[in-house]
């Protein structure tokens, strides 16, 4: 028996939140997701001066951190280690230097701002994190930014909390949580799987004609240089920083979507794919991570088991 899917959508963390519940109570699930997102915002928002992360970024002494911030740091370090430092959480200052110093809703419409300049990225090895007692010490000048992994971790935590909030009924329930295109699933998938449209921007309506894949489990995340773009000093920049240069990545790929067991791993791989450039297909294949890479000219490369397209929706 297939349960009925119910969906809710709202905005949080500066992005769209989608929750879909299969065979369970939508309100219970959305309440659980809201609680997680509130905790995430209070704990590791870079744009809240009162967040725990903002406090940490202003200190150079060893600091004891909350379990949630510890998870965020561990996820970020996992990304750095798994990509040989390509996905680096110490890009905070470099990100501010290119003008991303407020919520994108503000800077995206700002006509003037700080003069564009580049800051070197200190590198993730400059984070002294002790997991045993959850303490972290940053060298002077380091600002952490969990942009690459923070939202994905929030999706993983939210979907787990939502499923846990649902009473076990019959064949069990299933939940999908999407935070701005970072999609995590848990529990029983609907018949035929969770259906996801792959696009450059998460703002693309799901019913738009395009490439739809189905997931029975796991997660999918997308990194793209086509969104969060803004202009400073007559130069267009975007939010994916290459830690080797401190500048926005200059990649042959404009968008990378990757399927993995968790949204954190999917996001790490998608961001790494943009930064790896021509080496991305081989890198994803070696790790068995299905990926869809869209070149700057629109050419699409599918690797490591990403299915061939069957366009769906309402062809014009």
């Amino acid at each position: 028996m297939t349960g009925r899917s119910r969906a809710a959508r709202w905005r949080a963390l500066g992005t769209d939140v989608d929750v879909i519940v299969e065979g369970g109570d939508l309100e219970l699930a959305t309440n659980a997701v809201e609680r997680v997102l509130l905790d995430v915002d209070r704990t590791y928002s870079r744009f809240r001066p009162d967040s725990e992360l903002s406090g940490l970024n202003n200190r150079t002494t060893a600091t004891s951190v909350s379990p949630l911030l510890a998870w965020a740091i561990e996820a970020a370090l996992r990304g750095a280690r798994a990509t040989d430092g390509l996905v680096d959480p110490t890009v905070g200052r470099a990100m501010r230097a290119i003008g991303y110093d407020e919520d994108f809703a503000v800077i995206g419409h700002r006509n003037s701002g700080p003069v564009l300049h580049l800051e070197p990225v200190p590198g993730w090895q400059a984070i002294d994190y002790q997991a045993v007692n959850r303490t972290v010490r940053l060298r002077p000048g380091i600002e952490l930014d969990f942009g690459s992994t923070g939202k994905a971790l929030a999706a993983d935590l939210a979907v787990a909390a939502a499923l846990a909030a649902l009473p076990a009924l019959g064949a069990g329930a299933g939940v999908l949580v999407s935070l701005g295109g970072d999609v995590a699933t848990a529990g029983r998938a609907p018949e035929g799987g969770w259906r996801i449209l792959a696009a450059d921007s998460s703002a693309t309506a799901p019913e738009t004609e395009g490439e739809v894949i189905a997931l029975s489990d796991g997660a999918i995340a997308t990194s793209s240089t086509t969104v969060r773009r803004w202009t400073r000093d007559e130069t267009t920049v975007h939010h994916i920083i290459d830690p080797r240069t401190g500048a926005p990545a200059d990649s042959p790929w404009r968008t990378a979507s990757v399927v993995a067991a968790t949204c954190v791993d999917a996001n790490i791989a998608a961001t790494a794919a943009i930064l790896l450039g021509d080496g991305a297909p081989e890198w994803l294949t070696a790790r068995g991570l299905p990926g869809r890479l869209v070149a700057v000219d629109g050419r699409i490369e599918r690797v490591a088991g990403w299915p061939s397209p069957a366009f769906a929706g309402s062809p014009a």
Partner: protein
Amino acid sequence: MNPTLRTSPSDRTRAVRRLRSLTMCTALAGLAAVGGFGYLAALTYEGDKAATTTAVITTPSTTSSSSTSSSTAATPSPTLQAATSAPTTSTSRAQVTTGGS
């Protein structure tokens, strides 16, 4: 010279014996003093003892120092985990969109 202090051969023999025993005692006392002072010096001089301690401490101290500064770097690279099931193509309408944000 005092004429009443005439010495006999036996007196001379006694004097020679006394001089010999005095020499022997002085020599033994000197040896004993060298040994005794040497022993005392060995007990109280810390130089070698400290050098040995330093050598012993160096290894764990170095290890501890490097583990502090590179604790985040020392862990082996993690493997990104693939989903249990591969994605499949769907011809149905999508429920959500994955894309940059």
